[in-house]
């Protein structure tokens, strides 16, 4: 039996240790699973967590991989803090990429200073609009935002598939499902480091992601809006007495998280792909959920968490190439990591004692209760 008793105060060391211990345990369990499935556990862990960051340009690529995760997770933090479960960031990201792509493809001759802001705005609005559907259905009709936002992700995947195969397909693409490539003004350029030149795929969107996370941290921690979000999540009754509107908070956090996901979609396409194709995201919207939790719903910590999870993503690629592991293996890591983090949260809030069921129940004065429990055991 596991029994929990609430802690009076949470030591800071415990708060900081939880994610570290969670990551360590994930590695141990992951290695054990690899061993059981017949892979060399040490070689697997090496391919996962060391090989992808053994050169400076690879570290730059780590930031590139983390970029969409950081942007999306910074937005999701708002939703989850308010107890609004937006799990459709993947779909919102796709819609953001499509909206930005619409601008880039419809007006390819816009000058750079107009094009970039217009695409950023379009991307955010696209994601925001897709996020508004579950938000408005929830506030208006009381539907479950988890299911609606998820269903809309499937719809978004099919929608972009149709557009790049149908109306937006480049007639010169030899039948490939690709739109025309974006004009130069619509592309996010690579970072030229002084004295080093280009480092891997490092692009300016990464700087944008870091700024975005900082801004999210500021808004959540230092503004009335952030305060409302946190109150509605922790103590909705108190929030209502204070005159906060649950519906408005729901709409705002869905707008923020949807807009962030849309922005990530725009950045991902403009920086790394340069045109629309059926797969513009590789599950970033879902992976960002884990990033948000690993960061314990703190936008500053999202930056570090994004890098950690991006490492596992790159590790998946490297393990696929070196050990012929299927790509989905990263999902195993991500799932276990999330389990560990959630259990760690419990250790944070409670004293946990694990004991074997003892015989005290058999005392005569407890027999009555015992019999009733027996009845219910079916």
């Amino acid at each position, binding site marked *: 039996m*596991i*029994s*929990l008793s*609430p802690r009076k105060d949470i030591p800071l060391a415990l708060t900081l240790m939880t994610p570290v211990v969670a990551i360590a345990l994930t590695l141990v369990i992951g290695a054990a*699973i690899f061993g059981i*499935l017949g892979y060399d556990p040490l070689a697997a862990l090496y391919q996962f967590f060391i090989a992808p960051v053994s050169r400076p340009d690879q570290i730059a690529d780590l930031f590139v991989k983390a970029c969409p995760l950081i942007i999306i997770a910074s937005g999701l933090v708002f939703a989850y803090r308010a107890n609004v*479960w937006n*799990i459709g960031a993947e779909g919102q990201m796709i819609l953001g990429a499509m909206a930005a792509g619409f601008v880039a493809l419809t007006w390819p001759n816009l000058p750079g200073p107009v094009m970039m802001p217009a695409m950023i705005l379009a991307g955010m609005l696209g994601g925001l609009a897709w996020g508004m*559907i579950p938000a408005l*259905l929830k506030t*208006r*009709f*009381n*539907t*479950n935002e*988890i*299911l*609606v936002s998820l*269903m*809309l992700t*499937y*719809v978004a995947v*099919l*929608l972009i*598939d*149709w557009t790049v*195969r*149908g109306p937006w397909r480049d007639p010169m693409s030899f039948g490939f499902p690709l739109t025309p490539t974006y004009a130069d003004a619509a592309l996010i350029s690579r970072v030229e480091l002084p004295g080093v030149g280009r480092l891997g795929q490092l692009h300016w969107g990464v700087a944008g992601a870091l700024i975005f996370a900082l801004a999210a941290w500021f808004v959540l921690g230092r503004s009335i809006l952030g305060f409302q979000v946190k109150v509605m999540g922790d103590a909705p009754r108190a929030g209502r007495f204070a005159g906060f509107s649950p519906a408005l908070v729901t709409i705002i956090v869905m707008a923020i998280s949807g807009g962030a996901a849309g922005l990530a979609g725009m950045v991902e396409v403009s920086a790394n792909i340069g045109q629309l194709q059926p797969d513009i995201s590789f599950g970033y919207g*879902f992976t960002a*959920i*884990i990033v948000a*939790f690993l960061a314990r719903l703190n936008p500053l910590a999202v930056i570090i968490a994004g890098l950690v999870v991006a490492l596992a993503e790159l590790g998946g690629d490297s393990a696929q190439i070196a050990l012929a*592991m*299927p*790509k*989905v*293996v*990263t*999902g*195993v*890591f*991500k*799932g*276990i990591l*999330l*389990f560990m983090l*959630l*259990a760690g*949260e*419990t250790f944070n809030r*409670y004293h*946990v004692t694990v004991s074997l069921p003892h015989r005290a129940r058999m005392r005569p004065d407890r027999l*009555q*209760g015992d019999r*009733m*429990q027996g*009845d*219910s*055991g*079916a």
Partner: protein
Amino acid sequence: MLEDLILTVLMTSVPLVYAATGELIVERSGVLNLGVEGMMLMGAVAAFGIAMVSGSLVLGVIAGGLAGMLTAALFGILVLGFATNQVATGLALTIFGAGLSGLVGAPLIGHAIEGLPVLRIPFLSDLPTVGKLVFSHDLMAYGAVILVAAVAYFLKRTRAGLVLRAIGDNHDSAHALGYSVLGVRFMAVLFGGLMAGFGGAYLPLALTPHWAEGMTAGRGWIALALVVFASWMPWRVLVGALIFGGITIMQLAGQARGWTIPSQFLSMLPYLATIIVLVLISRNREFALANSPACLGRAFHAGK
């Protein structure tokens, strides 16, 4: 042609019936397990792997159920033992199940097996039309109907069912009466996993006799929506699953008849239908909440 179409609709709805009925019991006990998709995938891969290796479909079905149940046990320990957030743990279960099933199933890709045979009933199966539509299914399809009947009877007519509902509606009172809230909930979670595993097993054993990564394609999530659609009543799950089966098949029918709508839009139908159904059910708060377990999703720990 029409008979074949209806038959396909029935088969498509079978996995939904299993998964949704299992989740219905879980939710009636007050636990929300969003990991149905992950449990179904684990069930699917285990069922296919064991059926392929052993050559026995029955063993495959059992393996599928057990795999779903084991996956659910993980969820149960975290959510009930450690009182973790149910929504997040369920999501983790789906991510984990999708990953692990892909890893375990990698060597199985490209293999095919003989699907579940139709269970012929002497005389009845030979009847015109009715014979084909009602009496020419595989064992698991019949099992789905029996399952719904059994769960309906259990919830409404048995003492244990009453206890389960009591725990889902007010865990504090049930605890005060001496019932083991966490014990009953753990059993319910295991049952939900077993059923999700069966539902997953049906995909590679009957519907499409091969294994593919992520082959559930959102069925676990649709099963969750079905529970809301059914407003936590077992027989309505059956009705809902048939409707969804019909919508899923409409895309095939549409293609066969040469509809000019792009296939992507037809493929969207089940997901859009889920959203519309959720709106229709949820907008009437009284109807939606009449049977909804009052403690759904709330953690319980004794002696706080």
